[in-house]
């Protein structure tokens, strides 16, 4: 099966520091790749590179059949809609001068959704992330941390993307709203075949949502494969530390 998103041998350096060192992965239609790894291991950097927000020093990213970094401006504009990012820092990613409704409508217009349908679509998008229509007129600074995160998710979904790169996209949510958002993601996957590149430090979430996992440590892939296989029998010491810490936190 051909992949919707793949990376091969990605290297990224910041000065003398190597943040990513030969990272490769493949993500198929309708599947979820969970990305875990210590804080600072390079997860967000990898996310930025597959969004072409940053260029790698070496390696190739392919979106569908196209090489992401040799696309023309026009191809890139099209590609931008096929792959959507929910950034780790959602508040700073939302335009501070736009209300929630304006932000969402902006995406709907880009897709050619008729004006008269915007308002109903916006309400429906908010419902998918457990928010009422009351928030349509709110500005980003008037939202709580978890509400801003949910607007970033709604905005990504509004584009009907093929791939969502979710960078800690449910980490600021209470467990019930988190469950609602995870259910929404699952629905998008089964109904529309959306693929998820799902970065999270929360192993319970990763176990629930991922088909495969990729474990990063200091910029290198130390383990990857089907979720059950990796988490039930971790080969890498770092993966074991993560699992142990989780079990000790759960034991209390």
């Amino acid at each position, binding site marked *: 099966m051909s992949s919707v998103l793949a990376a091969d041998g990605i290297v990224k350096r910041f000065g003398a520091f190597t943040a990513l060192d030969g990272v490769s992965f493949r993500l198929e239609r309708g599947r979820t790749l969970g990305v875990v790894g210590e804080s600072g291991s390079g997860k967000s950097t990898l996310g930025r590179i597959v969004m072409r927000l940053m260029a790698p020093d070496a390696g190739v990213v392919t979106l569908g059949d196209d090489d992401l970094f040799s696309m023309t401006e026009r191809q890139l504009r099209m590609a931008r809609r096929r792959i959507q990012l929910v950034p780790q820092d959602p508040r700073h990613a939302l335009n501070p001068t736009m209300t929630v409704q304006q932000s969402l409508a902006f995406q709907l217009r880009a897709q050619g959704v008729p004006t008269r349908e915007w308002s109903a679509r916006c309400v429906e998008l908010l419902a998918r992330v457990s928010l009422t229509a009351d928030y349509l007129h709110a500005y980003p600074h008037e939202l*709580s941390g978890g509400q801003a995160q949910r607007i970033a998710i709604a905005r990504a979904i509004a584009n009907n993307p093929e791939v969502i790169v979710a960078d800690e996209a449910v980490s600021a949510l209470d467990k*019930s709203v988190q469950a609602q958002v*995870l259910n929404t993601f699952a629905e998008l996957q089964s109904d529309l075949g959306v693929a998820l590149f799902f970065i999270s*430090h929360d192993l319970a979430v990763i176990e629930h949502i991922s088909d495969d996992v990729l474990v990063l440590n200091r910029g290198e892939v130390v383990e990857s494969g089907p979720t059950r296989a990796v988490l039930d029998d971790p080969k890498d010491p770092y993966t074991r530390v993560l699992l142990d810490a989780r079990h000790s936190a759960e034991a*209390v």
Partner: protein
Amino acid sequence: MSLGTTSAASGGQLDDQTPLTLDASNVSVSFRSPRGGWNTVVDSIGLGLERSQVTVLLGESGSGKTVFARTITGMAHPAAKVEGTVEFDGVELLSADRRALRRLHGDRIGMVPQDPNSSLDPMRRIGGQITETLLQHGKAPNRAAALVRATELLELVHIADPERVLHNYPHEISGGMRQRVAIAIAICCEPELIIADEPSSALDASVGVQVVRLLDDLRERMETAILFITHDIGIAALIASKPHDRVAVMLGGRIVELGFAHQVLHNAQHEYTRALLAAEPSANTPRGELAVVPDEVRMRRDWGPLRDVEPGHAVASTPQEVTA
């Protein structure tokens, strides 16, 4: 007994003699609604924070946790209408002037904001920001000593290569590293009160546990009172580990359940708390079928006042119980 909603003494406080580090009573916060009138997002909350005690604040996203935490340290949003009183060592924080507040913050009150970007200056290196805080509050005699201390602080929050990070600007470090820098700055003056707003939300379980140990160690040594906001029940149980530590649960601007940690986490009485604690992601649940808090519980806003159900444990009754 007075109505629990406004009394700091109700719920999780057995002993009236224990000194309060911070005493918030009847705190309400409203914002102007775009449709006219005011939206009340924090509704007459009373909460006392005892010396050496951890109070965990759980609750719905948007229930008012951050607004409440910022307000009681005198940092309410300028557009907010604030009512009530908050006392910290004889100072009324809601009416204190900016100079008095600036003296307290950093020195005696440490804040870890939910969004670490909001407290870090994007134009200055991490090292400069930490050393300046240390020098400003007299925690280091000179720049060289401050730099040594800054390195130690980054090691304390388990940042692997502190020398590199000291030279980095905030945008050059990862989300979890920024969060830990904010924690390092909040604890560097060993304050009497720490308000930590989801301080481990970007950290994995292993580092999260280490941050909890660090805060726990501080309260042992300095008798620091800690208000700890989190969505992570495992972390909540871990930080509220002493018998007198408490958990408060917020919904729609109110505290709907308050008690000692074991009471709330193991014997929850409020419908919302029970449903929230049951909503955990699991590999055993098929995708798309995770349980959520039912809307009729989540959206309901007519809970009665907090009433004691056992010593130290107060619950906002359901409307039926009130009329019954």
